[in-house]
């Protein structure tokens, strides 16, 4: 059993919130360049170039790439041999988020009562915290700030087994088609399949965490991802929806077993900023 004081989480979460918003991931930069070279629309190429320029300026100026610095989605992989001491775990993570959004000049985008009051909480808390117990004696934290524009284009559908893999492909492509320019394309498409109503949605979000340069480990699912991506990039939506061949940078699928009567499918859409940063506490 290893003891970790929860106060150690605060500066780590603070830094992850800031870094995820200031610095573009190398895999995102690589993908945008890859598609820019192939892009047929001159306007689309201009926009992609502007996105790359924005990455550089954000790092130089120490400003967030996008003003929508998102809801702080926090994934924790907690080693089962860790004993957390020194206070409340969730409170510590929220304190890290509070400090990161305050000190990093990040926008506070959370409202408490989501319908009637909609009052801003003023410090971007509460974070959305998903904790998983894993083997080991360390703690891995991933902060994935998620903007509203792309999140709003996401969807869960309880499909039938009879819909098959073609049904899944059609649903994902149609979801992106109906999203048009709203989610800030070129997007990254996370797809969660199986489990249950709520688990497939979480799978779709977790699918976004895979590096864009990595293929699905199972070749038959990798082929499905490639086919969906190709179909999405034939839709013509393009960067910002103004027309072009670069509508998505990647399609990433995660699946789990499910009930014989079910085939839940979730699509979680991410914008081109595609932010996430991780750290390990030992």
């Amino acid at each position: 059993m290893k003891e970790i004081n929860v106060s150690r989480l605060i500066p780590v979460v603070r830094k992850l919130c800031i870094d995820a918003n200031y610095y573009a991931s190398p895999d995102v930069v690589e993908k945008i360049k890859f598609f820019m070279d192939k892009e047929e629309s001159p306007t689309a190429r201009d926009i992609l170039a502007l996105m790359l320029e924005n990455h550089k300026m954000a790092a130089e100026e120490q400003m967030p790439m996008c003003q929508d610095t998102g809801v702080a989605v926090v994934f924790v992989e907690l080693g089962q041999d860790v004993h957390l001491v020194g206070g409340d775990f969730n409170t510590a993570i929220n304190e890290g988020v509070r400090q990161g959004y305050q000190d990093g000049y990040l926008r506070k985008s959370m409202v408490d009562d989501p319908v009637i009051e909609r009052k801003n909480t003023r410090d971007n808390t509460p974070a959305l915290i998903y904790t998983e117990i894993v083997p080991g004696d360390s703690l891995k934290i991933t902060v994935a700030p998620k903007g509203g524009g792309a999140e709003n284009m996401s969807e869960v559908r309880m499909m039938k087994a009879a819909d098959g893999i073609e049904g899944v492909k059609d649903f994902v492509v149609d979801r992106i088609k109906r999203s048009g320019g709203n989610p800030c394309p070129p997007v990254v498409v996370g797809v969660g399949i199986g489990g249950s109503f709520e688990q497939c949605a979480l799978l779709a979000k977790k699918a976004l965490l895979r590096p864009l340069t990595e293929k699905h480990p199972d070749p038959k699912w990798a082929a499905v991802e490639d086919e969906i991506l190709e179909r999405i990039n034939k839709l013509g939506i393009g960067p910002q929806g103004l027309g072009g061949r670069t509508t998505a940078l990647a399609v990433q699928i995660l699946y789990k077993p499910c009930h014989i009567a079910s085939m839940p499918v979730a699509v979680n859409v991410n914008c081109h900023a595609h932010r996430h940063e991780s750290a390990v506490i030992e």
Partner: protein
Amino acid sequence: MANEIKLHTPLTSEMLEKLQVGDKVLLSGTIYTARDAAHKRLVELLEAGKELPFNPVGAVIYYVGPAPARPGKAIGSAGPTTSYRMDSFAPALMNAGLKAMIGKGPRGQSVVDSMVKNKAVYLAAVGGAAVVSAQAVQTAKIIAYEDLGAEAIRELRVVDFPVFVANDIKGNDIFKIGVEKYRR
């Protein structure tokens, strides 16, 4: 890309007549920020026959909730938010004289129809390129609804703010034309 046109606020119908979808516009002058919550209040004022916190005639509204400014900076990152959420409020503001809206993503048919009727345009800024957009802002001050935080109405002085004409006054829509051109 087609033309690059410089415009200065306040805008008039005559100035907008020459704009075509796809044109790049470098906008200078005064623009006002407003998004979901501020729009709700603005339209409530119009319905009650009261004055708005700014003169809507010839005005430009930018759909943005900027990030906080670092000390010494006019504004933090300030890219556009998704525009369709303002669709139900936009026609009332255009009827009151609003001449341009800046945001990202396509508009509903009622907004497109109102643009044709009122000779107003919709301009697309590049979503996510928020540091680039912020560079065009010289000064920013809150003029209403400070309680809304990032959603307060700010008066921005901008110089050569880069945007693309997404809907012109003839009812053309780049989100339809552009997509059709590159669909396979």
